[in-house]
């Protein structure tokens, strides 16, 4: 499978893999396959950056190679490494052969020359342990290369990537330059925790992936087959969008929306009420401070006309049967206060 013929086709191919695109994403995928340029996806966690790479690999029938970046990563784990152990082992095993080679050398100088002439044996591809980047370049079949969370790696690694991103080649000083037989589709993702170098950005097409529109999010939730009734899914998406508008430390992502929908479906909920949502809100909101904020806002999000109670506790009394739930959340709040003081 090579490049897509049109933007629509790209969108459809991804949709067939369960990844719903909007115009922007479809255009990006189309152009990326046509121009064979790397793509840099920036955006908050959980908006489907990594998923896009997986879906693209599936849609184009390519193998997915993944380089997960982390702090303090060095180029050896990204490009290649010499397999010293293997080299030493071979040297030992071939000791006799080497001995023969230099046996009839008249002097030391000549012996060194002879061994020098054989040097390339030990610095050949045989002893090269390929890491994702080199593997992508050397692959017989075209691949999709995912460089995940590039912003976590140090700046030094960015520089290492430049040759790969610009020319699809990797230079190994001892051997030479590997150039990609088939240009891989390269997708870089970044959570935007730091600004990337201009040189890197320049070599890539760039897309800022944000939280999706309400319709698209609903479509995604629907397509994931969560088992939540349509009406509730619609309401849930609206509530999540409301939560995103609060100033949370980490806004709920698409994947968390889906998790929430699944959770509610498993619980067999047939009506979205504040207590039910409060009980399960920890699925989408992961920080203590955020949980408190979300709990305070939930009743208003569920029913904008509902009177916002003074405290969550009071709200619990309002609906006698739901007394249990808000109490738990209130306790949670006070406990964290206690820890602070």
């Amino acid at each position, binding site marked *: 499978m090579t490049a897509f013929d049109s933007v629509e086709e790209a969108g459809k191919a991804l949709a067939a893999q369960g990844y719903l695109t909007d*115009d*922007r994403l479809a*255009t990006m995928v189309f152009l990326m396959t046509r121009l064979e340029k790397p793509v840099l996806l920036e955006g908050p966690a959980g908006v489907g950056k990594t998923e896009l790479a997986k879906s693209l690999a599936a849609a184009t029938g390519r193998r997915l190679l993944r380089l997960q970046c982390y702090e303090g990563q060095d180029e050896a*784990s990204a490009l290649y490494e010499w397999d010293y152990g293997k080299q030493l082992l071979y040297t030992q095993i071939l000791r006799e052969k080497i001995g023969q080679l230099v046996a009839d050398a008249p002097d030391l100088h000549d012996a060194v020359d002879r061994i020098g002439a054989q040097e390339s044996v030990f610095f050949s591809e045989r002893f090269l342990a390929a890491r994702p980047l080199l593997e992508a370049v050397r692959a017989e079949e075209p691949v999709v290369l995912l460089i995940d969370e590039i912003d976590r790696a140090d700046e030094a690694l960015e520089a290492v990537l430049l040759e790969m991103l610009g020319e699809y080649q990797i230079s190994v000083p001892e051997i030479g330059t590997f150039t990609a037989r088939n240009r891989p589709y390269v997708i870089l993702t970044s959570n*935007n925790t730091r600004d990337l170098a201009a040189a890197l*950005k*320049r*070599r890539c*097409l760039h897309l800022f992936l944000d939280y999706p529109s309400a319709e698209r999010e609903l479509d995604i939730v629907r397509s994931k087959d969560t088992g939540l009734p349509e009406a509730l899914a619609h309401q849930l998406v609206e509530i999540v969008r409301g939560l995103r508008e609060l100033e949370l430390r980490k806004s709920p992502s698409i994947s968390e929306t889906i998790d929430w929908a699944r959770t509610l479906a498993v619980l067999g909920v047939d009506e979205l009420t504040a207590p039910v949502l409060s009980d399960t809100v920890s699925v989408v909101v992961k920080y203590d401070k955020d949980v408190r904020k979300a709990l305070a806002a939930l009743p208003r999000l569920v029913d904008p006309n509902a009177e916002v109670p003074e405290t969550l506790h009071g709200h619990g009394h309002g609906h006698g049967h739901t007394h249990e739930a808000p109490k738990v959340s209130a306790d949670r709040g006070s406990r964290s206060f206690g820890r602070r003081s």
Partner: protein
Amino acid sequence: MEASLHRFVRLLRLRDVRISVPETIDALRCAAEPGILADRAVLKEALRLALVKDHRDDAAFDEIFDAFFALVRVGPAEHGHGHGHSHDDLSDTGELESFTLSEEPSETPQQGHEHGKPSDIRDYFDQSDLAQQYNLHQEANKIDLASMTDEIVFSTDNTVTGDAGYRVQLDTDRLHGAGVPGRLSRETGTKVDAELSIAEQDALLGWLEQAADGDEDDAAQLRRRLAGVLENLPEALKRHLEALLELENTVVETREKRAAQVDQAGESERAELEESLRRLASSLRGALTHRRRIASAGRVDPGRTMRRNMRFDGIPFSPVTVRRADDRPRLVVLADVSLSVRATARFTLHLVHGLQNLFAQVRSFAFVDDIAETTELFAEHPVERALGLIFGGDVLDVDANSNYGAAFGEFLAEHSSAVTRRTTVLVLGDGRGNGNDPNLTAFAEIARRARETIWLTPEPRYSWGLGGCDLPAYAEHCSKVRVVRDLSGLDRVALDLVTR
């Protein structure tokens, strides 16, 4: 199409969007792909992919794209070629040539001489800009270019009418919301021993406005002070108008540019700041240490390999690999945000924000006579908002007199765990403790705990000795003290630190 796109890129550059030549070529290739030109929305996204590499440039791109390709909707056949017409509303139909600029102000106000369509000069100025720079007193509209008028006339009859532009200066101990010191007052006057609350300040200002019909002597005195400003005003205006006439041809681009300056001044400066910071940080990071540590990956260490493999008769079955340890320091930034450094504090905090954005492991603190951690504040808010919060007094009392001693003492008491032997402490401030106890012991303790202490001060070295500056005493404990008051200074320091 090439020409249109090139022009489009030029317009984007005028808005300080950084676009390189390869990116322009990418954009051309994108546009050349089948199906891209058929749909305006698709073209927009395609160009955005190729050209916009920063989320904050999105708004500028949207705006310019919409303006530039505005005519595409009319006829699908002329993609992008319509730009020439799309700016029709900007072309100037009033005959500007008839502006007369005379060296001498005329005696009496005269009627304008234009024929043709009367043009409103107001349109050629940025209103808010005018009100600030050329209108000395907004209430008295004697020389108000921002008001609706067809002609401007400078008359000798009313050089100074009423109290327009008279200036009253007042020095106080404490003042809130005064802004940058330089803007507040250019000269020091007699100091009034008083503290003004905001209400008192308002009352005072109200009273000053009422005192329009002052005594003749006062007025004369004030006029003398003001003379310089007014004399230069026609000059300045003339220069401005001439510049505008000159720019008439390229009015489109001028407009773009002016809007850009208002909206996002310092976009390029931010880029520069980023560069300098990267350089600075690479020096802070400290080169690789000489210590070699055994690591699972790395180079083979011949000596250790031989030693370990002695039991195999020197046959190196299990190689020992080592790696040079990279001792990456953590950064703790202490920034003075008191009034005395207010002029540079903005820059300073931009610097802190930039540092935090670019590098992990940065903790920042702001202090006046109290110290508060701002790490989260900067992490959560964009820089403008964070600065607003700090200077608004939400974080700490910014109107107090700076007290370095107390701030250092409290830092040591509350946050001493932030400073370890891997930490570099960066102090940003002028070291003017207003005669308070400099608390050298606390600072010495901080410096002792830290691996390195760097002090960046906005004040030139010669003035350190003047009035209440404790910097020379602090400097003994710092490993480096540098004078940095703006970007170029920072750049110099960064270079200096890197090369040594």
